[in-house]
């Protein structure tokens, strides 16, 4: 093989490699967009329907779940890597405690001095305070954190690596999913920054789910329901 033929071969291989990398990046973006679009369809289209037709929520939610699980299987992501094992639980909790205390104090101050709202613990729906709400809060937090961190955050890390860029985009996407509720968008953006950054250092979804449930409880207990728009997002926000 002449030197020229060798150089040509290297060039062709490099071009193929470049295209493959581009294709992989495109796939990652497509996966993220696909899951986000399912959530937006659920929030903006299905919730606009009435009564029993809300059961149609199962379609976009189911499709998103199938995609996330299948993609993680195809990519060979393990439970530990995703943060679904017990690993990093304590470390993640330790990292969460500080920002959560600061966030809770900030919410108490905003509620007290901005809205003049009294601190009311257990402002949740009747019957949920003692047992139901913490369980529901954890399950709901787990679901959201799984999609947000174990899927979106990890794919953004594959694109850009760990760091502020990935953290910022995760938080922006999390806020986008809470449109058009301004108060929730602000809260989820700040929470999203915290959870995304901590997940990158200590990936554990259970710790994040606990934090999610606790911070939601603090949010609801410190700010008036009218300011939070009844925690409604998407089409339901309008009534």
């Amino acid at each position, binding site marked *: 093989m002449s030197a020229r033929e060798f150089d040509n071969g290297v060039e062709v291989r490099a071009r193929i490699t470049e295209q493959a990398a581009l294709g992989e990046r495109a796939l990652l973006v497509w996966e993220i967009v696909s899951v986000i679009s399912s959530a937006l369809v659920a929030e903006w289209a299905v919730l606009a329907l009435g009564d029993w037709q809300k059961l*149609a929520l199962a379609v976009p939610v189911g499709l998103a779940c199938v995609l996330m699980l299948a993609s993680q299987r195809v990519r060979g992501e393990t439970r530990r890597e995703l943060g679904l094992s017990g690993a990093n639980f304590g470390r993640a909790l330790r990292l969460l405690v500080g920002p959560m205390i600061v966030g809770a104090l900030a919410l108490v101050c905003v509620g007290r001095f901005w809205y003049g709202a009294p601190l009311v613990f257990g402002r949740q729906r009747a019957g949920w305070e003692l047992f139901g709400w913490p369980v529901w809060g954890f399950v709901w937090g787990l679901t959201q954190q799984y999609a947000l961190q174990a899927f979106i955050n990890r794919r953004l890390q594959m694109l850009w690596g760990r760091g502020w860029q990935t953290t910022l985009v995760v938080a922006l996407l999390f806020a986008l999913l809470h449109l058009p509720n301004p108060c929730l968008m602000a809260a989820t953006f700040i929470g999203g920054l915290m959870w995304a950054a901590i997940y990158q250092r200590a990936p554990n979804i259970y710790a994040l789910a606990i934090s999610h449930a606790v911070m939601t409880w603090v949010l609801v207990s410190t700010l008036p329901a009218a300011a939070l728009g009844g925690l409604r997002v998407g089409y339901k926000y309008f009534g």
Partner: protein
Amino acid sequence: MNADAQPVADAASQTGSPRLAVSASDDARTNEARPTAHLNERARTRLTHLLLGKSIVETLFVAALVVVFARQTFNPFFRGSLDNADAQAVAGWVVDASAPAAHVEVQLFIDGHFAARGRADHERADVRSAGRAPDEFHGYNLQPPLLPPGEHEARIYAVQPSGAGRITLQQVDKPLRFVVPVSDENKAMPNAWWEATRP
């Protein structure tokens, strides 16, 4: 690890591809392996097919939602007419062709303001003889409120329940203009009559 996914270090060394993830200094902050993007051809094809399939199913789902929502909100089967309008009565008929035996609820708007409501259950033999409904009770006859003298416009809307406690109003036939003559009762009525007759 799944057979479709390969360690990034191997892939990078074999292909010389740029690393799609982070620097070693970032890795040092966590004890977890850095997520990698590399997929072999088969895995990439599978994932692409999955994404395409999901996109198609979701598009069809949204299209179906639009059709269901439109059908539920804007009933395309209302048939009817606004035959007569004057200071005493506004009359006509309405049938829901998808449920011809049902008696449609109607609302009267005059000059763009709500004036009266009722049900199209008055006798109209011509509706039945025209084959519009199995019975003749599909007429409406609504009494307008006291109106000031001058020209007014009447519109009749069929009420369509559209789920979750919402209703939509669908105009039946074209609006009808009519003139109210001066009388002892209405000569003092303001032009903004709806302010005076508000319940």
